[in-house]
């Protein structure tokens, strides 16, 4: 196959996809880099010339920067913890033979199909509303004062909402992994005298390690950029301003494109650090 002719034909045929992908990535990235070195205020004079690293310095020295990094990490970490733990438990539960298995599985996956904006609105208005929300009614039923979720426990609320949304994804991947576990291995462990908890710890969990790695990697990529859930619920107040949201505020609310672009480059760097870090920890599970 690999003649000179077929190789150049292959390159020619791959070219549109490669060019499109490169354009898709490189154009926004170069524009962000370009603007990050400019003082660019669209409503207050427009392009005011080059400023070197001023935007970068201003962005990190702003009092909002480190709290936003921390909020990002808490949300990502919290959601990962909840989705992986409950994902494993749900997957084991769904793996048990039961009546109406097909319907139950579809219902479990359902939250993943709901748009983030809708999810956040449903949670904000139907569950977490301190007057009419279901949780408020539940609290009142026990004679307690309803929690004002989005202001008193804002980060926890966001973590709950995003976890609800991502749990089906984790469950689905972990369920397929559990189904691929050789039943004779479990029986062998049973004969070897392992009680159920030991069977889970020694057989099921190691078998799932690869699937858990995949869940963690994929979710981290998407969770670093969550936006709609915060925009719809707290608008970044009460300590829920993530790095993504801070950038949005700098660009659109303060109308400072240069400063926001510098933040964008920081976000790229942060994402790469985390990705590298994760790859190091869990990478050995993937070979």
């Amino acid at each position: 196959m690999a003649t000179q002719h077929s190789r150049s034909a292959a390159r020619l045929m791959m070219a549109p996809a490669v060019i499109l992908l490169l354009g898709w990535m490189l154009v926004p990235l170069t524009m962000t880099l370009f603007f990050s070195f400019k003082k660019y205020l669209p409503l207050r004079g427009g392009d005011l010339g080059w400023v070197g690293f001023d935007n970068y310095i201003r962005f990190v020295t702003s009092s909002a920067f480190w709290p936003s990094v921390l909020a990002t990490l808490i949300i990502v970490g919290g959601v990962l913890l909840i989705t992986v733990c409950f994902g494993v438990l749900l997957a084991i539960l769904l793996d048990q033979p039961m009546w109406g298995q097909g319907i139950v599985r579809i219902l479990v996956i359902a939250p993943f199909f709901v748009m983030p904006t809708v999810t956040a609105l449903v949670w904000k208005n139907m569950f977490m509303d301190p007057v009419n929300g279901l949780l408020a009614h539940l609290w009142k039923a026990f004679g307690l004062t309803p929690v004002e979720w989005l202001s008193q426990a804002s980060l926890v609320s966001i973590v709950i909402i995003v976890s609800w949304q991502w749990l089906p994804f984790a469950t689905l991947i972990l369920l397929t992994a559990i189904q691929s576990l050789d039943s004779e291995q479990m029986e062998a462990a049973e004969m070897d005298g392992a009680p159920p908890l030991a069977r889970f710890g020694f057989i099921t969990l190691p078998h799932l390690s690869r699937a858990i790695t995949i869940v963690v990697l994929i979710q981290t990529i998407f969770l670093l950029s969550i936006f709609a859930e915060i925009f719809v619920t707290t608008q970044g107040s009460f300590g829920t301003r993530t790095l993504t949201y801070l950038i949005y505020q700098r660009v659109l609310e303060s109308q400072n494109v240069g400063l926001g672009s510098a933040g964008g480059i920081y976000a790229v760097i942060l994402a790469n650090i985390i990705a590298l870090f994760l790859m190091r920890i869990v990478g050995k599970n993937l070979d």
Partner: protein
Amino acid sequence: MGQITLEKVTKKFGDVEVIPPLDLTIEDGEFTVFVGPSGCGKSTLLRLIAGLEDVTSGKMMIDGQDATDVAPAKRGLAMVFQSYALYPHMTVRKNIAFPLRMARIDQAEQKRRIDQAAAALNLTDYLDRRPGQLSGGQRQRVAIGRAIVREPSAFLFDEPLSNLDAALRVGMRLEISEMHKRLATTMVYVTHDQVEAMTMADKIVVLRAGYIEQVGSPLELYHTPRNLFVAGFIGSPKMNIFSGPEAQKHSAETVGIRPEHIDVSRTEGTWTGRVGVAEHLGSDTFIHVHDTGLTDMMTVRISGDIEVSHGDIIHLNPRQDQFHRFDAQGLRIA
């Protein structure tokens, strides 16, 4: 000790009765083989003994103690699975140590038993490898090692050799037989391969559709099969079975004669036929003979080599004292 007794044991999956009421005693130290065609319930029976399946009704005793509702781990039995069922993320040492670890046996004793088992099974050099890095035969030995270290009262083998190639199978067959002689522990072995059954067993249990067709030593089954099914199942190549006027001559509905009990002659004989395929094995020759008028094809086994080729007409002389006679129900006539 390791006497296993089944009393009126049955097993149903939904409405399907896989094991009809069945009685069986496996004596202490005996090598018992369950043999039968696929789907005859032999694996299910083994899993019932192991406790991996619950009996639907009936009673199971191990060493005189009622074990019907005892958890698998508490029965003191060790099982070797068809797929070996090794734990892929553990090293060979940890695989073998797993049952000991679960039983909370102290480290020194664990090490002693593992080293002993590894030495007996030629696994000493592989203790730190993972199952994925081992060959089929080595994996098989790890699975056996994991069973041995528990020092069980009986070993259960579920078609342990079916995933190995032919040469390894012969080797492992010998190793398991030798292990049985050395340990003198009860072994229950499931296979569909009658060569394994004949060579290894003290006692063979022939099963068909959950029913025990015959229980006996390999040679009993070979010389006096109780019915047509056992007659056809035990022995290789298969017994020649035919009915009709020729059978009536022996005052039976059906008669059978084993291929090794027929002599071949060029000049004269009781039956005449045309040679189809002749399989020359060197030590033996299997001749498939057509157009004898008795059955579609007769198989004849001649010791040594004989010059016959396709299409030759030959004469067959059955040894008159070697006929097996069966009545209309397919049962042996004594």
